[in-house]
């Protein structure tokens, strides 16, 4: 079967498939750093969150932060991955001004988390992306080149902050899949509370490995690694550019050099940072300041017992229990806060209407105002009240939209708005009959036309009746009465 979502790069005679693997660096949600008690709060004044350990003073020693270990294991469980009871911290040695120790403490041969998987919901079905490993490591500081014209300044606030490097298998095949993969990974970590996934603040960044091969080929092409891309959009742009660059080289009969490349956002292109020959020799070896990290089954089981319902399970439950479509369920579970909001609303309100109102009106408002659902101007309680008012016929869907607009300002109770503005639906048959009678009398010519066979005019009468009721007339009743009067 032809895959309509297949992403191929086409040239005259060849179609190329793009093979992508991601190394995602996710900042562990933790108040203190991986090996010191310094704060990790974002946005502090430069060099105000730096301990003697972070600045690598002589004789200073790292001490592992148990909470960060728990967070990594929790994430591993969320990725359905192997948790390694014994892992080892290694030193990755290289010199840079913002790397005070002259090495980064990382995990090389023995990561804390082994193979796992992430399920992507693509338009044409589900796709499984393999996770190669997850390991813990320290972040470096920040070199700032553009403040002082003569000097590079260094901010060590980030130095020593705990990162999880999550390495995927080369299972991704398109920029769309990368988008969905990153979002899914972020969703899982936000459900778990292990990474806030905030890409603007650098809590989530990725190195992107890209190679291309002619469609149908079994072996991988030579890959290039694009370093440190910090938004999904840039990842997609970088992939498209890099894949095309590689395809062009192949088409010209040239070979691809395995190298590390940088993505230039302004020029929308990748350029060589260092070739394989210039690659650093990081001289990894086990950090002698730290014993191998060993955790017990009980330690892991205790963490497992804290794992909340994750997106995949929640989606399944929403479909089975609430009869949502897979599409609706995917949207509602993608963010843990959205799912919480949804469940709060449907506690006391109709599921179908709630789903439509949340994914429709509410999302539109949030998008327009650029708000997270946790900042929603309308509380779940008031939205469920509104939905109940629709359901019990107090207001029509059309009036509900007017009420909804009013509710945005100050999260008001819809009942009060309806009373204050007199928006209650008119469902009294007698009152409606009077009103319709008036419409018929005022439009005798149209009635004649209708009766002579111009059926389309029915809509006109409905419109006039609604207008006469100032929009409050119960549409079903108006229809019923009109039909009776005109056809009777």
């Amino acid at each position, binding site marked *: 079967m032809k895959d309509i979502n297949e992403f191929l790069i086409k040239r005259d005679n060849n179609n190329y498939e793009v093979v992508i693997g991601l190394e995602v660096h996710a900042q562990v949600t933790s108040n203190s750093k991986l090996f010191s008690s310094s704060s990790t709060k974002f946005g502090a004044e430069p060099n105000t969150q730096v301990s003697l350990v972070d600045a*690598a003073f002589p*004789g*200073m020693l790292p001490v592992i932060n148990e909470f960060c270990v728990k967070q990594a294991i929790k994430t591993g469980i969320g990725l359905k991955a192997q948790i390694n009871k014994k892992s080892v911290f290694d030193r990755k*040695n290289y010199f840079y001004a913002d790397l005070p120790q002259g090495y980064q403490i990382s995990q090389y041969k023995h990561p804390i988390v082994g193979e796992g998987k992430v399920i992507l919901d693509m338009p044409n079905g589900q796709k499984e992306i393999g996770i190669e490993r997850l390991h813990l490591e320290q972040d470096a500081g920040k070199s700032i080149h553009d403040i002082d014209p003569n000097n590079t300044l260094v901010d060590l606030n980030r130095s020593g902050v705990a990162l999880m490097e999550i390495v995927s298998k080369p299972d991704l095949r398109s920029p769309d899949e990368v988008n969905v993969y990153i979002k899914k990974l972020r969703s899982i970590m936000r459900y778990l509370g292990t990474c806030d996934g905030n890409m603007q603040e650098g809590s989530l960044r990725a190195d992107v490995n890209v190679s291309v091969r002619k469609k149908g080929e079994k072996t991988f092409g030579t890959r290039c690694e694009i370093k440190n891309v910090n938004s999904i959009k840039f990842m997609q742009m970088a992939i498209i550019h890099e894949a095309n660059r590689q395809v062009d080289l192949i088409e010209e009969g040239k070979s691809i050099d395995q190298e590390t490349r940088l993505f230039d956002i302004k020029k929308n292109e990748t350029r060589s940072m260092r070739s394989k020959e210039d690659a650093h*020799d990081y001289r990894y070896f086990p950090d002698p*300041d730290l014993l191998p990290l060993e955790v017990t089954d009980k330690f892991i089981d205790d963490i497992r017992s804290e794992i909340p319902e994750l997106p995949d399970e929640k989606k399944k439950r929403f479909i089975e229990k609430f009869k949502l479509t897979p599409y609706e369920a995917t949207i509602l579970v993608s963010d843990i806060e959205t799912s919480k909001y949804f469940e709060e609303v449907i506690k006391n309100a109709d599921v179908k209407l709630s789903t439509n109102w949340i994914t429709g009106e509410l999302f539109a408002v949030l998008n327009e105002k650029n708000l997270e659902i946790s900042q929603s101007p309308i509380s779940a309680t008031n939205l469920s009240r509104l939905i109940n008012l629709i359901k019990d016929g107090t207001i029509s869907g059309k009036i509900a939209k007017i009420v909804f607009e009013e509710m945005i300002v100050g999260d008001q109770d819809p009942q009060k708005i309806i009373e204050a503005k007199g928006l209650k639906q008119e469902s009294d048959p007698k009152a409606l009959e009077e009103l319709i009678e008036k419409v018929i009398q005022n439009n005798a010519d149209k009635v004649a036309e209708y009766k002579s066979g111009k059926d389309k005019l029915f809509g006109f009468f409905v419109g006039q009746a609604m207008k006469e009721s100032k929009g409050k007339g119960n549409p079903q009743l108006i229809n019923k009465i009109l039909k009776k009067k005109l056809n009777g």
Partner: protein
Amino acid sequence: MTEITDLTLNEIVTNIKKKKISSTEVTKSFVERSEKSKKLNAYITENFSSAIEQAKKFDENPNYELKLPGIPIAVKDLFCTDGIKTTAGSKILNNFIPTYESTVTQNIWDQGGILLGKLNCDEFAMGSSNETSFFGNVQNPIGENLVPGGSSGGSSAAIAANLTPVTIGTDTGGSIRQPASFTGTVGLKPTYGSCSRFGIVAFASSLDQAGPMTKNVKDCATLLEVISTFDKKDSTSIDFKRNNYSSELTKNIKGKKIGIPKEYRVDGMPVEIESLWSKGIEYIKDCGAEIIDISLPHTKYALPTYYIVAPAEASSNLARYDGVKYGFRSLGENLIDMYEKTRSEGFGEEVKRRIMIGTYVLSSGYYDAYYLKAQKVRQLIKKDFDDAYKKVDAILTPSTPSSAFKIAEKTNDPVSMYLNDIFTVPVNLAGLPGISLPAGTDKNGYPLGLQIIGKPFDEQSLLNIAYSMEEKINFKNKITNWWM
């Protein structure tokens, strides 16, 4: 008349507690003698006036419950001391003043000790003769132009010359025991994990241990009791039950089994050392212990293993001295140039040699052949000891293959310098406790030491054996004050 500076730590403590002498008198005596001993070059940084001030304060409000009541103590300049320059014997830390205190020195101050000064040592503790120090070599009080051993050469010279009642050193491959042996003093390297490494300038993290350097075994027990504590700030610190080493000290070692490893009989070993060892065996028998011949088959690989593992760790540990954050910086055209100039000018030859060796053995393509293989051999060496300890309680060997040598005699021959550590490095590789005890002299009258190696965390047995032997040996160090 006996001078205060001739007394042992325990004698001084007793006199202070009995109020026969004050901390001020004691401190002034050691300061005066240290002032007269500048020729030895034992100190890098003197803290004399401040020490006397602190002694006066102690005397105003004395606390005799402490284990080191108002005792002035000079320490190796590898221990970071709050507000006092700490150089590690290197130009690259020539201007470095820590804002923090090492756990080991803090333990000493907490028990009433007073910092007398910072003692010379080989640069970053890399050396066996104190000749790699940026602050110049140290004279051995035993004889002019004789090295005091290393790397704790300032410490061994200071204790032998009575410049401090006791001192502390660090031992990565023999840096406490070899200088103790060269100066006729006692030096103990505790089990790895006994003394916190927090605040000690690191050389090779998996081997470094701080330990006491003293005039006799009893002082050694007292000081070990003070410095050996569990410390959460050092992830390799071990939480085991520590003895009251000094009060539990006993000369009764009847029934103890002492192993004599045949592999320590190396080719070309001077006859004096051979006969010293034999005498040691007789002393042990006299004490009622049993002698058992043992084999430690991988001993010959210990030195090459050590000279892979230690430089590998050092090459990484010393990467932080880059001119960016603290210490010496040489200006450069750009970052790389600054690094190169700073490290070329800031480090001495021996340190650079070891950084290069360490960098090489960790490099891709060589890692398996050197570093990984060395780690495997290290396990075999450790297993040798584990097997031996199924049969014996402790092991007796010489401390060094020779007595103190002349200054500059071996500086151009690193390998012959490295051979000094042949009997001490296996102990570090296996993480065991080892003590060097003065046991005799060579034909020149230079001291020679015997080493007792113990089971992990069994410092008490080690001290007891040394204590009983000490009485039998009855070694008297001949210090002529030639430098005064």
